[in-house]
């Protein structure tokens, strides 16, 4: 029982880290219909900025994360204007080609400027210490990641379902010309949601760095994981992505505990099974 609980906690922390990174991708793919394979690259940029600010400049963890989000969005804005904007209404394969190209460039440039070594983001003392939960000790930052994940999920749900921005966004997604005719500034809406997605990626890259370490190849190394999570959850669905992250995190962690040799087998078998049973994703929107 204790063991089960302990594993469940690990699974939850890992799942939440994935969720924070992936939810932005789920939004771009589901709501903006943009297959952005460069999403991981933005998460990585966030991680690099956080590491630079917190470790090299000594500004501390919290400032590092804020700078990571702001800095990554700042980098993403010209990219959105110059590149992404031109492929919103192109075929998925064109989007794949361009975003892979962008990912290659980001990897190459990062490698050039920061070198191929690992970058860490030093944790503040409160988060670095193991916390004793009675039945086991858990690293403080894992609890922080779980909490962050819940806040992100709640905040996004509120933003999209309950605010004017959310209504406009949903309108722009359902029928862009009609929304425009009704005075919704769809270009602005798209740019804002793109920035939101990128900001979340950067946030995820920074707080998830303890799980997925920051290095130049990050953007390609975890691309498959991110894609799988988004599609199992159903692109564009926040509860779906949350469910997928927790479920896949649980399968991954449990399989690695029970049969570490065949951990990958069970993970991908489970993915095949889930996709075959729920071809639209766990809680995906009907297309």
């Amino acid at each position, binding site marked *: 029982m204790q*063991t089960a609980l*302990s*594993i469940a906690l*690990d699974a939850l922390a*890992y799942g939440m880290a994935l969720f924070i990174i992936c939810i932005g991708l789920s939004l771009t793919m589901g709501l903006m219909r943009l297959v952005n394979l460069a999403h991981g690259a933005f998460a990585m940029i966030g991680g690099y900025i956080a590491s630079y600010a917190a470790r090299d400049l000594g500004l501390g963890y919290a400032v590092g994360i804020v700078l990571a989000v702001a800095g990554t969005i700042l980098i993403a804005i010209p990219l959105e204007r110059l590149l992404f904007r031109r492929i919103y209404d192109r075929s998925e394969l064109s989007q794949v080609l361009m975003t892979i190209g962008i990912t290659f460039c980001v990897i*190459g440039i990062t*490698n050039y400027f920061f*070198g*191929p*070594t*690992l*970058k*860490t983001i030093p944790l503040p003392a409160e988060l670095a210490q*193991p916390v004793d939960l009675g039945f*086991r*000790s*858990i*690293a403080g930052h*894992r609890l922080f990641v779980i909490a962050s994940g819940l806040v992100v999920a709640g905040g996004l749900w509120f933003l999209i379902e309950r605010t004017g921005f959310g209504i406009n966004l949903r309108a722009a997604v359902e029928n862009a010309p009609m929304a425009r005719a009704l005075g919704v500034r769809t270009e602005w809406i798209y740019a804002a949601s793109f920035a939101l997605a990128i900001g979340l990626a950067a946030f995820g890259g920074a707080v998830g760095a*303890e*799980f*997925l*370490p920051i*290095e*130049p*190849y*990050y953007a*390609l*190394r*975890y691309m498959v994981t991110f894609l799988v999570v988004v599609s199992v959850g159903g692109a564009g669905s926040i509860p779906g992505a949350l469910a997928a992250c927790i479920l896949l995190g649980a399968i*991954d*962690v*449990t399989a*690695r*505990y029970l049969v*570490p*040799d065949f*951990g*990958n087998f069970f993970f991908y078998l489970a993915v095949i099974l889930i996709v075959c049973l729920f071809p639209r994703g766990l809680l995906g929107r009907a297309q």
Partner: protein
Amino acid sequence: MIDRRSFSRLLSLGALALASGLGLGGAAAADTVKVGIIGPFSGPFALQGKNFQAGVEAWLAQNGKSVDGHDIEIVYRDLPTANPQQSRALAQELIVRDKVQYLGGVYFTPDAMAITPLLKQGNVPLVIFNAATSAIMTSSPLVVRTSFTTAQTTTPLGKAAVDRGVKKFVSVVSDYGPGVDAEAAFKKAITAAGGEVVESIRMPLNTTEFSPIMQRVRDAGAQGVFAFLPSGPPTLGFVKSFNDTGLKQSGVKLFATGDLTQESDLPALGEAASGMITSFHYAVSHDSDVNRKFVAAAEKALGDPAQLSFPAVGAYDGMHVIARMIAATGGKQDAEKAVEAVKGLAWESPRGPVKIDPETRHITETIYLREVAKDAKGHWINKEIQRFPEQKDPGLAK
């Protein structure tokens, strides 16, 4: 309009590149010996490739760019990940088109295996700077290796662990060739020393979340963990997970090969790995004049001292071997004579005294037991605490 213009511009650019890249290989001038180096210069293992280059350039900087009047020209070729087909194509091109007399480098075993069948026909020796599986040496008599094998670096750990009173082990390795080799070598060594492995865990190479593995270790109730993971980002997660799950506090000892604590990862691992005991053939902090000179030259070549790691020393010594080969053959292309000339060659390497074993053509070297600690300047290093001299590769021992 834009389409056409940019397209034709692209075409002409491509044609230019074709002409310069594919077209003119040209025969080497009579007194220039070409050496082809294949390594992961980009991609996820770019750091190791950069270290190859640093080792080669450090050697050239110290010894000059010629041997007995024969100029050395290095041709680098990028092989980002294990890809035997690409490896073969690159080696073939280096031999046939660039007319290299020597091949060096090679980070991964399958890539080396793809090259060895070409050596005899091409009359070219291959000096391996890294690829660490025993079997490569038996696949061609024209292969010499200046790195290490996993079994070679693992074996001394058995005795060292038992000497420290840790006998009951769980072994945790990445599930691929070298990992399986390490698991077997450690089991053999610890059993011979009077300890035991109570559980062997193999985890997929792409594992990033290690807490379930640590949970298993805890369940097994072992006193020590033996770990093997290839150098790279996951080692950080592994060591942190070992600490975070409380295993370190509960007194479980972590032993590993030096792959886990390569110097370029130490600034990131830092405190987390403090006190961890590893065994390896080279530490950047090795205390000798030869090493200090080597480190200075290699750091200069890298630009960033924090990136220096063990593949550089394999490359540096590989260049030493190639230079002896060039001297022995008088700059003529004669692979058999070249290999024959370095059998039994012994010299003082930055890692300590080494020798090319005449039978296996693999390097015989000292394996060090090291502890992760801070040096006088506060940098994290692998501090050598015990020596096991003249270790051969147990995988090739008959």
